[in-house]
């Protein structure tokens, strides 16, 4: 077994763009669920809005910053449309509507009648939308290596993308940290606990929930953009599985904590990579690489179950808080 290679793979996951993308999406979900108690089962839908919004806008010749604004607008509009009918209802309705809406969005963008705009079933290939982002890269051409990690400076899965992605994660974490400790975050927390009580104190609960839904959706859209930039935009990669992974990450790290989404994302991807690489390297041929992939996902499912049963507060969560709720 080649332990150096396995270790390199695992460490590489810690700062991979996908890890950052998942962290951003989980930070958004944390604003929904951890801070406000909104059960959003369609975070992938927000990521899809970001990914497609950005890709389509760039393909139409929009500069990077305008494409980002277009992507964020798409996610915000999506949030408002979902929120208007559901936020005045009980929590479970939002869960049903978001999962359905995310599926509708996915099926719409992959439908063949929209092939001219979204690429339909085959999606949008990387080269069609990555150009402007790569041109904005301030680094010199070529590639650079840090120890065993060698990536292109500007192209596709690049250092440039890593810098942007992790800067976004840092900004998002600082913002959420600030919000959680602010009076605004306090109102959201109150809504999470009991929205009627907050209403009875004169706060516009509906407005706050809408703000939280949009805000978390925007983080989701950012995550979606980062998620597709190393590769391509593909509708089926932005489906339910993605949503469930983001949930696993949030619950693993700890909902309602500042660093939970980040820790959850890093942990989940490094462990997955470790299992996959180890299984693939086993001296005797028990599992093929496809089976290894599938097996690692089985483990994700088992982890999620064990987590909810034995440590519902996640790694960083406060045991006391959950215990109170159980009474």
């Amino acid at each position, binding site marked *: 077994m080649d332990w150096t290679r396995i270790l390199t793979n695992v460490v590489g996951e810690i700062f991979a763009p996908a890890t950052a993308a998942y962290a951003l999406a989980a930070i958004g979900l944390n604003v929904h669920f951890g801070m406000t108690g909104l059960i959003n089962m369609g975070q992938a839908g927000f990521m899809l809005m970001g990914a497609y919004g950005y890709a389509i806008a760039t393909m139409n010749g929009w500069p990077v910053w305008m494409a980002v604004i277009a992507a964020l607008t798409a996610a915000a509009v999506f949030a408002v449309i979902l929120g208007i009918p559901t936020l005045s209802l009980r929590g479970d309705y939002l869960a049903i509507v978001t999962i359905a809406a995310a599926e509708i969005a996915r099926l719409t963008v992959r439908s063949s009648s929209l092939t001219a705009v979204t690429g339909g079933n085959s999606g949008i290939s990387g080269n069609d939308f990555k150009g402007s982002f790569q041109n904005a890269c301030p680094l010199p051409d070529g590639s650079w290596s840090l120890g065993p990690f060698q990536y292109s400076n500007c192209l596709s899965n690049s250092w440039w993308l890593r810098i942007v992605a992790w800067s976004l994660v840092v900004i998002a974490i600082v*913002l959420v940290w*600030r*919000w959680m400790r*602010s*009076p*605004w*975050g*306090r*109102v959201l*927390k*109150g809504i*999470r*606990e*009991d929205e*009627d*009580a*907050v*209403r*009875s*104190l*004169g*706060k*516009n*609960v509906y407005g706050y929930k809408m*703000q939280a839904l949009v*805000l978390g959706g925007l983080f989701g859209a950012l995550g979606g953009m980062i998620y597709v930039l190393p590769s391509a935009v593909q509708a089926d990669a932005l489906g339910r599985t993605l949503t469930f992974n983001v949930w696993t990450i949030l619950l693993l790290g700890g909902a309602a904590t500042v660093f939970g989404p980040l820790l959850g994302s890093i942990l989940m991807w490094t462990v997955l990579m470790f299992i996959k690489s180890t299984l693939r390297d086993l001296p005797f041929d028990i599992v093929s690489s496809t089976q290894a992939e599938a097996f690692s996902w089985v483990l994700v499912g088992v982890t999620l179950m064990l987590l909810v049963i034995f440590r519902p507060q996640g790694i960083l969560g406060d045991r*006391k*808080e959950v215990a*109170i*709720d159980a*009474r």
Partner: protein
Amino acid sequence: MPADAHITPKERIAKDLAAVPRKPGAAKPDSIIVADNVTRRFGGMTAVDVHHLEIQRGAITALIGPNGAGKTTLFNLLTGFDKPNSGEWSFDGKEVSRMSAAKVARAGMVRTFQLTKALSRMTVLENMRLGATDQSGEGLLRSLVPPLWRTREAEITAQATELLERFKLDTKAADFAGSLSGGQRKLLEMARALMTKPTMVMLDEPMAGVNPALTQSLLGHIQDLRDEGMTVLFVEHDMHMVRHISDWVVVMAEGRVVAEGPPATIMQDEAVVDAYLGAHHETDLGDDSLLDDEVLVELEAEAEAEEHRTQEDA
């Protein structure tokens, strides 16, 4: 009113209310709530049907009645937590019917709940802070710039600490609200409501589930509210409490206001006895035929027959 300075608020209010007629919908000398033709139906059932109701400013008014009388529904309507099928009411001169619950609260009418709504996974102090008004840091963008709201936050914390001391919860300030006892949660909910600096406090069964040791202190707090000039309207089942602290009692039965009067005499009101004891409550008490022996025999036979039927069913 320097001439009245030597009398207690309770006595002053009793004097103000002395001339009010003891009948449903009586006009008060200084009403803070005036409601007209308020109805709320759930399917075919009329839960609330109040023709006219006035609540005296600065007084403690008790809303009593048997189970299912529509007290809590009326409460929900007045505070904007439910929408009426018809009717208008004003609060402090402002039309507030059909206003959202949050707006009603901002207008100065704040409520508590029958099933206490302490925000369990927040500390007691955070619960209190949440009640405060005019905190600009509750805006999405302003919250990111602490210098904009820190001064106000300090004022809020001072106000909260003072209230917690008054309600003897100051030692619990850093605990999760979920770790408090039932009675302490009631106290917290009341204290939190006071953070909004209301003109009127609506208490839905403030004594439900409170242990006897805390009852006395809760009663004291409610009377303090009145003595500070706030108006209190509360729903309660415990008649001892009603007699002890209220200045005026409104009795509801089957959605309607059936009687009003001072607590000392209200329980002698025929309509109230009727509402609570319920004997032939659908029959007009003025119906002389009830006094007729023949009719009585008939009614008895009916009752007997009914009993037989029930036994057979069983």
